[in-house]
């Protein structure tokens, strides 16, 4: 279970296992870049980027979940997301949370 609450109602935390994290760095391909260039003139939503970032975020969550289950947790609490653009062509997506064992 993954949640961004600090406490889950009706569940008791039996053990804290520390911070878990997952990150991924993605860049877009040239076709999307050209579209983005055009959209920078006309304005509007960049659907390609929206999807790309959503996929990347899911990947980051998956990595975080993997790490959590490898240390024996069954839930991640207080999940936060963070995005940073490293260069103009790539973005890093980062998800982190607190791994716990819940009954």
């Amino acid at each position: 279970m993954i949640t961004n609450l600090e406490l889950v109602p009706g569940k008791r935390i039996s053990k804290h296992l520390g911070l878990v994290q997952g990150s991924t760095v993605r860049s877009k391909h040239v076709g999307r870049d050209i579209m983005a260039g055009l959209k920078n003139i006309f304005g509007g939503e960049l659907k390609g980027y929206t999807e790309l970032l959503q996929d990347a975020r899911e990947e980051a969550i998956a990595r975080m979940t993997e790490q959590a289950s490898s240390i024996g947790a069954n839930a991640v609490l207080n999940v936060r997301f963070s995005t940073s653009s490293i260069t103009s062509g790539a973005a890093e997506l980062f998800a982190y949370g607190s791994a716990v064992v819940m009954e």
Partner: protein
Amino acid sequence: MFDIITFLTLLALGYGFGQWFERRHYRSIRKREQAFKDLLIIQTRIIPSPFSSDHETFLVNGNVVISVDYFKRFVAGLRNLVGGRVTPYETLIDRARREAILRMKEEAKASGAEVILNVKYEMCSIYKGRRNNIGSVEALAYGTAFLRKKTAPEETDPGYLKPTAR
């Protein structure tokens, strides 16, 4: 000479399409905000008592990347000289945030959630053009959706439980 013509064309195109996109987007945002009015977002650290048990929780998120148009960027560039409110970017960010919330609500609604708790925003400029002008921003909204466990069908259809008077 050619440069000036290109520049003016881009400015006109940016103004025309940008305004059109923005007006259309705001119309759709207002319409959907009305439609999702009943799905509450509660922003407290303590979980309200009606949701304290017999509920499933899951993470929902919504994101959107919106680009600024050429005209707005030019106006913002001018504004940088004198300082003050940069209204073109204000509407851009407002649109992005509201759209992200709406997408999160759509996702929550699709799985039948009753309420969303502890929503957080995240904002990031992902495309920096030449001269480091901000080209587009990403808005992300995420929270925990609460879903009532499907164990009480008598609330929705009490008909078959009523005793038949004879």
